[in-house]
């Protein structure tokens, strides 16, 4: 806490060069005009996962998983899942596909499998042995858990294989699969990336699976903070020093280095350019949360499309497109969620045009179609995104945001809250509908 304050103060001193944008007065472009405080957690909420168009799940340091109805903004059920903070969550389809399973891993060394529909614990796996750091679905209905060791689990929770790691200082913190079949995956452990694959061995009449280490990749300068698959052939990793590396998924060689910083440590080892999060769009564009700002890269032309160096007062924790790409939402440790977009003089007209064309979020955000995009070479072509709205509601750092389309946006944070950001007009319409359908004609629904 003290450190955070310190850091904040430090950053504000740096702002001589570039001042953080502020929004004053009315925000006509901000569609989130109604917010719902979803309270249940008693500690930092770190994870937010969309299950379907009606439900999302939140989990946090209090070891509790809460299932929320995103349309009505109410709690559906909650599981007091773990005795220690939940570190990772994974949603998979159940055996018969009609039920949703949720796997949670925690630092209490347990992995639990939940049936969300029935609201009960299906399995409690204790064989992991150490604190669980991340989970990844592999092959069909299997999953890998990582921490001090790598474990492969069958769909019924049976331990299929364990891969002991060398004596390392750090646990595996990130896991991604790099091809469609999910048989090969990359782990990030401090500065190092390692490739593993799952081999199936046919012994007589029984199939057994084995984790094999394929390759160790060249190290980053600092700890890897983000790891994301871009396409079938490409994945990206970002690290504390601000470097984003593009790797080939076939040869596992670094293809391109983006965003290299000379003095990456900054004042008092604050790492002002650290990469916190990378998201991928259209299998070729990378959205990266870098320091207090964000940047958009094109992995084909290897160019920086646009960037905002000072978007927040504190580090950006996550970013995502909302409203079908009309806006980019960034959340930060400073407790705010900010909405970025292109300034236009007539938003209504622009919207109509954009709606008429089947555009991708990137095109909408940059206000340009792909044809034009390919021709333009210089990054100066795109103006810096403008702050169009600010969503203030959290009183601690915002950890995650997820987009729910017309249902708005959900965020969770250090203030133990999950907040649903919705559009009041849409909510008014929905309430009218509910009143018409349910309250005034209760006989209709039996």
């Amino acid at each position, binding site marked *: 806490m003290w450190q955070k304050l310190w850091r904040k103060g430090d950053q504000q001193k740096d702002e001589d060069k570039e001042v953080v944008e502020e929004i004053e*007065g*009315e*925000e*006509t*472009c*901000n*569609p*989130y*005009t*109604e*917010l*719902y*405080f*979803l*309270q249940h957690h008693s500690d930092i909420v770190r994870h937010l996962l969309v299950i379907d168009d009606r439900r999302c799940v939140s989990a946090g340091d209090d070891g509790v998983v809460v299932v929320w*109805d995103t349309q*009505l*903004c*109410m*709690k*559906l059920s909650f599981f007091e899942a773990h005795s220690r903070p939940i570190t990772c969550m994974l949603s998979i389809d159940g055996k018969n596909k009609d039920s949703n399973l949720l796997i949670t891993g925690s630092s209490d060394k347990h992995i639990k499998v939940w049936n969300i529909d029935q609201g009960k614990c299906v399995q409690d796996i204790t064989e992991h042995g150490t604190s669980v750091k991340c989970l990844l679905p592999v092959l069909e209905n299997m999953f890998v858990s990582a921490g001090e060791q790598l474990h492969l689990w069958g769909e019924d929770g049976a331990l299929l294989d364990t891969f002991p790691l060398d004596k390392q200082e750090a646990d595996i913190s990130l896991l991604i699969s790099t091809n469609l079949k999910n048989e090969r995956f990359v782990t990030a452990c401090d500065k190092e990336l390692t490739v593993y694959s799952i081999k199936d061995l046919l012994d007589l009449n029984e199939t057994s699976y084995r984790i094999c280490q394929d390759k160790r990749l060249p190290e980053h300068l600092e700890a890897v903070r983000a790891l994301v698959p871009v396409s079938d052939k490409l994945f990206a990793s970002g690290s504390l020093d601000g470097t984003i590396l593009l790797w080939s998924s076939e040869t596992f060689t670094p293809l391109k280095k983006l965003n290299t910083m000379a003095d990456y440590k900054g004042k008092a080892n604050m790492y002002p350019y650290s990469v916190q999060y990378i998201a991928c769009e259209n299998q070729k564009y990378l959205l990266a949360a870098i320091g207090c700002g964000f940047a958009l890269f094109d992995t084909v032309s290897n160019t920086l499309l646009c960037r905002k160096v000072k978007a927040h007062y504190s580090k950006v924790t996550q970013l995502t497109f909302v*409203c*079908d790409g*009309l806006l980019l939402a960034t959340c930060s440790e400073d*407790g*705010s969620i900010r909405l970025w977009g292109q300034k236009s003089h007539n*938003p*209504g007209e622009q*919207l*109509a045009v*954009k*709606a008429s064309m089947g555009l991708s979020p990137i095109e909408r955000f940059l206000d340009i179609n792909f044809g034009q995009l390919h021709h333009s070479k210089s990054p100066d072509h795109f103006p810096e995104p403008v702050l169009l*709205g*600010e969503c*203030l*509601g*959290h*009183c601690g750092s915002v950890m995650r945001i997820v987009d729910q*389309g*017309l249902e*708005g946006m959900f965020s969770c944070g250090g203030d133990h809250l999950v907040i*649903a950001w*919705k*559009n*009041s*007009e*849409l*909510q*008014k*319409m929905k*309430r*009218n*509908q*509910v*009143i*018409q359908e*349910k*309250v*005034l004609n*209760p006989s209709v629904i039996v």
Partner: protein
Amino acid sequence: MMDLNMFGADLPYNMYIQEEESKVNDGWNFDLEDYLAPHSQVPHPWNRQTAGESHLDMDFILVAEFSELEGPREVLTIPRGGSSNFNITDFSVRIMSLDHQTTTKQGFHLIEDSQVTFSEIKDSVFAFVHHFALYDRHARGYVRPFAISYITPDSRKLLQFYEEISQQMKKVVRYLKYGNKLVFKNSLEMHLMDLHYTKAEMLLRMRSRKSSHQVSDEDVCYKNLRTLEANITETQNVLHTIKLSLVDKKLEHRFARLEEKAKIETPRVKSDSWSLQEWEEIEATYSVSSVSGSYDGSSLSDNTTGWTLFPDTRYYRPKTVKISSGRQFDIHLQGLHELCSWGHREGMQKLRHLYQFFKRDMAVLQVESNDKTFMDPGPSALYFGEDCIGVNLLTGVDKKCMGCHCLQADIPGLLFNKCSSIESLSFKSAASSFRSVNDDDAESMKSAISATGSPIVNFGLYNENDVPNTFELEKDNIDLYSNNEFIRHLTFKIQQLDIDISKDEPMGPIENAEDRTTIDNVKKFVESFGDGNKERSLDDVEKLEEGNGAISEMVVSTSTLLGEDFEERSSGTSDHEDFTCECDLSDVETEGMRDRLHTLTAENVGQLEYEKEAKNEKEAGSITIAPETEKTSVLAQSIKNESMLERDSEGMTSYDLIRLNIENLIPVDFDSPEQESTLFPSNPDNNSPDADNLACGFGILHIMTKYASIKHVIYSILIGRSVIVVGTPDLEGEVKNIVNALKIFLTSYHRNHKSFIPWTKCLPSLYKMTDLKLVGVCRPERKPFDRFIPSAIKKLCTVFDVKRREIFCPVYQGYYLSLLDNRVRNYKMEEMLTTLIKSIMVEISSKAFIYFHSFCIGPAGVGRQDYKFLQQQSSSFQRRVSNFMAKIGVHDSDAHIIEFLCETIKQQLIQDHFQTRASVSHMPERPLATHNDLCCQMMKC
């Protein structure tokens, strides 16, 4: 004669004020000393009955019993002592002599209740009598006949409310009887155990005696044994019958809960729950040794065994009983509370509520029953403050006169016509396109009971509740509302008198000696007030004096509503004939209605004293309600004298019309416990006494005149934006006053959650702002304002910095609140301002009503799904709303208010829907609107 009378009316009033004046310096103690209270019995001001010798002057409830020892006797009366000059004993004999036990069945059987009305036209005594029987093991035939009677001088009350009274009586008796049955069952069970024990003992003795061969004794023993057998069979039979009738598990659980609660509390508190005059009896009967055996003291203390309704029979230690075939009649017969245990407590409580409700004047009851439709369905009622229902969106939609009781459908139109002519409530013009709703605006005014249970009455001719509150406030020495405020109240009362007087002259503003005298009197005693207050008060008096020349002007300048009534009167009242509503009421009924109205004003004024008393009583923790007649207020007396004059004059013309008008706006208070519990959950653990004492909206006049930009703050409240009033510790009083005054605009005042905090040391979290709409916050001196309020709060809430007199909020640009703002300066009387506020709220609510029915629940309210983008859907909806709002004559910021009011109702409805659906265990969260589209500004005020 008249002159004398007038003076006589003012004399005690004068005395009253002078006495008060002497106390000014002693900290405004307004409790009237005993010796100041009038000694003579003050007759009812507008009593319909001529003052008879021994007539009944008030309603009361009598519980009587046919005692097998004494014959008919009174058990208790509510209020204690009943009516002063009414022979209760005689009456008891009369009602108990109606033998209702008509069955000729042999043996023990359950006795049905019967209800009769009883009238003694000669004495004008009318009673509703409910006969019932309680069971007592020691009584003849196990039965003790009782009767509860509601006795009233007003026969119409019984006729009009027969159903209600009957229902309520049944409920009361249900409690009593069920409690009694449980007690009876317990007593029988114990007795049976005693009998079995005795039998066993006897057999043992016989066996031992057999050895000694005493034949003569054996006969006696056998005889005894036979008697014992007979007793056992009889008891078993009775027990069987009783057990069969114990089917009301709900009530049983309720009693069990009560007992559980009482066990936790100290015995002292427990005994407090017994009611009224039986207190002494309770004390006495506890000491009476138990007639039956005793419980093993190991688990239960002796004290608890006496009253527990659910004893554990395992701990019962039986004892031998004296065998006799006959019955003893010298035994102490149990009191009602012993017979019914918890049933007595519940029943009596209900009975007291019943009394409190029905004792009021017929007209009040009638208006209430008309207005009650507004309470139902509960979730669709739109409340402002604690006592104003703007409109109920789902009430009376199908009626001809929409949203109102049809009795006085034409009156509001009349009112509005009048007021537009006198430029007082001119907002009508803006709404003229929607006459149908407009016409009913004033009628949707309603008041209800507050959380504390005291009747809160605000919207009416005379705001009876405000005055005691002022007293309270003054006692607290809040310097802000200085003596001026009190004088204003007093002068207001005086004006009341004047208005009443002037009503005597149907011919309009005529100068006469009587009025002159009054004004002079008023002037005299207002002058006798302290110098500091003189100027302001004299202003009022001056106005009165002017008014004497043209009375209508005078009234208009001080009060809109009275003014309208008065105008109505002075205009010659030719439209009197057109007045009856098409939908209701025969002429006869109207006539009766008017008749009843005679008592109305006096009742309200007379209640003043009583209210205060009741409040004091409550504070003292006592349940007893003092009889109000004993100390009828001086004011009531004076008004009564006028009413004597009135009776001499023409009587039933325009005056009644005015009264009828007034009735439309008359205070309504719901005393009925059901409504209280369902709609206004009481909040006993309210730890802010200030908030309790002050009426909702008190001080609004002061606040509105003091702070120039307050309308923007009000706007914030009306669009559901939380308002945070920030002040340094030295401004605590001011902040509290602001919060208290602005409470009147809160739409969520009654809900379970508390929507306001008058004063808190730390800023509430943002997520609490979904419920909290008005908060007074203390800002430490050393902490600068900008650092005290986080940016998120500043963005989502309106912040009112009292110290720097700055407001950061969305700007209001609209009609209604500007109108209110402009009018504030014309008002000297707070009652009138609150009335204006409420009428404006009702006006706005009526728009919300149209918006809800024509837009929200129509096809336009549901969005088309062909838009893909959130923004597109949103803006198309916005366009539709603003188009519709323009059609109904609502523009700019007012549209936001109406939208919010509608949303409030929608949320209430949805919430209610989810609450009543048992399958859903969780509730949807309440939203917090961000109002991104509104531009906030910093304003000086």
